[in-house]
């Protein structure tokens, strides 16, 4: 808002940034957090520290990503 033209147009203070009500965001936040938890579990820990599915297929498929993203792999 340091542009001089802004002041030339009208004197009013900069428009306040709108907010979105916390109540409307909370369910979405919960959903996004759960989605991230479940998906990151499969990338980071499945068939490593714990296993939902037996075998090593999931582990091996995401093996390089698990290492390079910094999770303990094996």
């Amino acid at each position: 808002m340091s542009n001089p033209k802004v002041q030339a147009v009208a004197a009013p203070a900069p428009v306040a940034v709108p907010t979105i009500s916390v109540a409307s965001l909370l369910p979405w936040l919960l959903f996004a957090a759960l989605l991230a938890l479940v998906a990151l579990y499969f990338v980071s820990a499945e068939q490593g520290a714990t296993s939902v599915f037996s075998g090593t297929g999931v582990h091996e498929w995401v093996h390089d990503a698990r290492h390079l993203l910094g999770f303990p792999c094996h």
Partner: protein
Amino acid sequence: MLNARTFLVRGLLAGLVAGIVAFGVAYVVGEPSVNAAIAIEGSGSDAGHTHADEPAAGHQAEHTHGDEAEVPRSLQSTLGLLTGTVVAGTVLGGLMGVLGALALGRLGGLTPRQSTLAVTALAFVGIYLVPSLAYPPNPPAVGHPDTIGYRTALYFTLMAISLIAMVTAVLVGRRLASRIGGWHAFLVCGLGYVVVCAVAIGVMPTYDEVPESFPATVLFEFRRASLITQIALWGTLGVVLAEFVGRLTRTAIPGRDRIPAPVS
């Protein structure tokens, strides 16, 4: 439209882009050291660490990287790596999108783009940087398979402590800002976060499972590549999401972030 759905969708999209960029960076920067580590593992020249002689570790005993592996290396380093970075990027992006919506107009005088960048930067520090300082990423051939549960628990415990401290710092900082100003609130809460994490790292157990014969250069190159990959992931996510949020709020509030046409 400024609502949760639009922010979630844009977050997922930004995360998808970030995951693809992170794959490219990880493939170019990271794969050489991963392959070097696997070659060391396969040659058996490391200090006794092989997967085959650890039958107690259950399925991990069968875990191999060579041609006999269930998923060949050629897939692990391409489609497998892409899957991992894209899945991680997309879900983290979705979370950042909603958190960006929450931060909109609630982080002092920051503009929509600035608050979005701030949220992703804080998440990068809280989720990756701090845990990795205590428990740095390790390449294949480093780490005993029978301690994987213990090491994973330590890593995620520290991540949880870091995240709780970060959320607390932001919430306290917002309250403090009205009394001592945004800058000093940032300094106080930033220091608080650093102290809490430093104490946690100091108190929590450490481990060193790098075989004596493992080359230090490969270890360094791998850890540097991991850091660069994470910076690529979070950096792309933050910048793309900030651009999206900037466009969203510009159309939602005409006049914001836009140079008005000159009026005579």
